[in-house]
């Protein structure tokens, strides 16, 4: 009893006692006046533990509250404090070098952020006419990406993976190596771990520490055993910080969100608890809009120097590209990098299956003055030749290599060379775009010259190894 008196004393304003029902993560409270849609509530159970919640439906006689944190131990007899404000966090440059949980509480033993403006974590949509079309090529040092899936500053490019593949290693390599050519400035990194296993989280933190990136990084961590509800807030906190760094402090920010599959699962869990009509596979019909409200926060704003480049990572359930999570993500993001189990099994790192992968903003970032004049043509030719090579490989499994025409055998050889020399590289190997393109020419020269129909003559004569002597 004295505990309750303590709590009542601690908070100002109205504190209600007693709720009608607790069902899963949802709490139903009756007879409350002045409830705001989406406002934050503080719930104190009879066990004395504090939890946060959020109003998701408000009417004159009933408020539906989504509980953040654990619902275990809650009884209908608990205290509910309506704070009158939506979920906001304080942003200031103190966030750099820090680690927080999915409620924005520090987990690095240091005190919380006390200075800076409070911002709503849901953010606001960028006015499309205020957007600057992204065009600065980011060199990641990874051939497959730089040449065939070029990333530009302000892009949102996800990695679609499968459990067990080295997507974390790839993301860490990108975070470590990403630079804009001709600029000294390094990316600030905002890392959001969503439902992550602690080993995975430790891998990233160790990576950031070893490369020195931790000084210009903010980590928001929701581990696999942390409350499910906070998974919905983790990426939004990360992006609110990123927006502050990019558009207030004018820094270039790389945001890594992993694993978005855990986010979508949490969304489904909550939607089911609310008894909403499901869309595909039980995921809510609004999942597209919900994911868009996260992904679309990437970009560049006219008149501001900073940028947000977003790299979400998700594991495709069952390796299925058509599963709603990768599918809806692909419709929102500007391309996708798809990892392949088959290439991984062959021992190829990074195991990027370039054929279904895509970077939609590539065209604006490459070419003369940005990378090199042959870049576009080389990339087109690699796609064409590799897809023929893969087709030849399938064919050879049926008719045997002997049954292939000489032309197809050429493509078969090309596919092998492409995977061995171009695609493969070390996790610490950082290739310049020129090195990458030169390797591309080397593997293309396996093919007879008249097969290079996607490259103009003058470019062939300038860059083909045969003419370079």
């Amino acid at each position, binding site marked *: 009893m004295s505990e309750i008196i303590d709590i009542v004393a601690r908070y100002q304003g109205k504190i209600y006692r007693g709720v009608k029902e607790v069902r899963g993560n949802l709490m139903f409270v009756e007879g409350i006046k002045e*409830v*705001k*849609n*989406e*406002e934050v509530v503080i719930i104190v159970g009879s066990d004395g533990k504090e939890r946060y919640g959020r109003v998701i*439906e*408000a*009417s*004159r006689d009933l408020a539906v509250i989504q509980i953040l944190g654990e619902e275990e131990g809650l009884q209908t007899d608990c205290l509910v404090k309506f704070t009158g404000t*939506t979920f906001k966090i304080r942003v200031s440059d103190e966030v750099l070098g820090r680690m927080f949980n999915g409620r924005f509480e520090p987990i690095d033993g240091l005190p919380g952020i006390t200075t800076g403006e409070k911002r*709503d974590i*849901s*953010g*606001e*949509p*960028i*006015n*499309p*006419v*205020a*957007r*600057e*079309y*992204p065009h600065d090529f980011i060199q990641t040092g990874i051939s497959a990406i730089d040449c065939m899936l070029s990333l530009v500053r*302000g*892009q949102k490019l996800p990695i679609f993976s499968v459990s067990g593949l080295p997507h974390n290693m790839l993301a860490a390599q990108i975070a470590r190596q990403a630079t804009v050519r001709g600029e000294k400035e390094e990316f600030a990194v905002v890392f959001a771990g969503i439902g992550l296993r602690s080993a995975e989280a430790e891998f990233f933190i160790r990576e950031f520490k070893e490369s020195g990136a931790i000084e210009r990084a903010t980590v928001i961590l929701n581990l696999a055993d942390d409350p499910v509800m906070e998974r919905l807030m983790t990426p939004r906190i990360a992006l609110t910080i990123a927006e502050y760094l990019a*558009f207030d402090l004018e820094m270039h920010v790389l945001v890594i969100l992993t694993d978005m599959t855990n986010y979508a699962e949490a969304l489904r869990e909550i939607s089911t608890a609310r008894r909403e*009509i*499901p*869309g595909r596979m039980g995921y809510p*019909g*609004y999942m*597209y*809009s919900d994911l*868009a*409200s996260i*992904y*679309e926060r990437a970009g560049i*704003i006219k008149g*501001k120097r900073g940028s947000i480049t977003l790299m979400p990572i998700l594991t495709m359930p069952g390796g299925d590209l*058509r599963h*709603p999570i990768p*599918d809806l993500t*692909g419709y*929102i993001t*500007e391309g*996708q990098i798809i990892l392949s189990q088959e290439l991984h099994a062959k021992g190829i790192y990074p195991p990027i299956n370039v*054929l*279904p992968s*895509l970077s939609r903003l590539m065209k604006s970032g490459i070419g003369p003055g940005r990378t090199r004049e042959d870049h576009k043509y080389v990339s*087109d030719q690699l*796609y064409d030749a590799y897809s*023929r090579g893969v087709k030849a490989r399938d064919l050879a499994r*049926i*008719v045997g290599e002997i*049954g292939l*025409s000489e032309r*197809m055998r050429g493509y078969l050889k090309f596919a092998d060379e492409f995977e061995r020399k171009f695609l493969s590289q070390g996790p610490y190997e950082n290739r310049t775009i020129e090195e990458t393109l030169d390797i591309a020419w080397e593997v293309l020269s396996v093919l007879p010259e*008249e097969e290079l*129909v996607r490259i103009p003559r003058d470019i062939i004569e300038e860059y083909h190894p045969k003419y370079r002597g």
Partner: protein
Amino acid sequence: MGERKGYIEKISGTVVIARGIKDARIGEVVYVGYEGLIGEVVRVTQDSFVIQVYENTSGLSPGEPVYGTGKLLCAELGPGLMTTIFDGIQRPLYEILRRAGPFVRRGIRLNALPRDRKWYFKPLVKIGDIVSEGDIVGVVQETPLIEHRIMVPPGIKGEVVKVEEGEMTVNEDVVILRTKDSKEIGIKMLQEWPVRMPRPCRERLTSEVPLIVGQRVIDTFFPVAKGGAACIPGGFGTGKTVTLQKIAMYSDSEIVIYIGCGERGNEIAELLKEFPRLHDAKSGRPIIERSIIIANTSNMPVSAREASIYMGVTMAEYYRDMGYHVTLIADSTSRWAEALREISGRLGEMPVERGYPAYLPDRLAEFYERAGRVLCLGKPEREGSLTILGAVSPPGGDFNEPVTIHTLRFVGAMWALDPDLAYRRHFPAINWNISFSQYVDIIERWWTKHVAKDFPEYRRRALRLLVVSSEIEAIASIVGESALPDDQRLILLVAEILKEGYLRQTAMEGEDVFCPLNKQYLMLKTIMDFFDKAYKLIRHNVSIEEIANIPEVFEMIRVKERPFEEVKKLYSKLMKRLKDIAIKYNVSLEG
């Protein structure tokens, strides 16, 4: 009407239930809460009504006021629409940027058309003229490309008693009419029209003329008529947006209205970068001067996404009524359908397929039916057309889903995008085996008059060759290509040339971005005549290698990047080579 004030009862997402306005009606625009968020009444009961709010509702509280406007959701129509970028409920986005900064804050109420801007109105009627609905009373040069014709609004008739000429704002009376019952009605340059209601016309006509887009696979194989409707379904990354954007930029439409509905913000940024930079082929003016863009990106409120489609089509009909050929591009109708689904779900309606409401097919039909070639209301007699092109984004790229299935029932052409082609970077990735166009018959009639008599014949044979080649390919994948007889290998070779040299076309820069019809015809003729003659030679036991080694054969793949004259030269060179072989083997190529 008195003050129409009520209060909020319940908030669930963007759906708000309110009480207190007894005569609230479906479609009425309301302002919700202290911030005055814009919404529309979607359901009424005896003592309450349901509002779909077009803005984010967080922080809204039960008990806050709701104000009814008594007006249906309308589009403002008048000079000033061209070159403007609107959101889903016709708020000008540059104006929002100026007032609120780079993020779209809520509760901003703005007129679609500026009230202080002056336009030079030039009357075309004089005092004493009797005018009625649709008659053009005067014109305004809206942009260097577009003459804006001011029409008598539907349902009005009378004698002209006053005419103004000169610089005026959209809200001033430019012409005053006296009706039969001696009432005076002022005609302004600004009109309003409820967006969910199609605008009237005198008569619907059948379409006869193709919309020329300059992409060979569309113009030659799956053309759409001016006044027709086409859809372009495809999974992500197959090139829906790029194809539609290129049509917006290069097609021979007089006016383009582009609706970015629930798609990416950067795609709109790209349009805004390209449209002022690209120039109209005929006039040399920037194409933005004949375009309106509606941008309701995926992170902007879902319910406004639903409205954006109707806003766009209403503006398109308005320009159609002036006598223009208008193309409306909706990217993507699936996001619109999803908005319908979301709102329907929140209203607790019974879902049918995959959560979509039972009225989804009706809504799609209503939308696509607003396309058409029409005889406009009023004098002078004129015709206009509205062509609708809709992107469809089927989940998982699987066309067997409600939006694709129902859309196909209401459109005349489908450009089906194929991920396998896209993976090979064969763009436009339009699959020639499953795409269709019901406009081919009427357009072939047009071709024979305006391009060449035998164009339809070449088209049919080329399509057949592609179909046969895919059958041969299937066999080749079992026995190997080298085991095939020479005539079949020739088919494979020519099919490859058709795919690489004809169907594949760049969307980026250079000569091949827009391929005029006469060049399309000559390219197709070159490839098919080559095939005919080569086939004859092979029938006379000339080897495929001899044919394939003709140096100009692979030229057919590259000639698209060069001007028309070069295609002519290539044609005669190729024919000469084949003739030489014919002479060598003593074969007659004639007959």
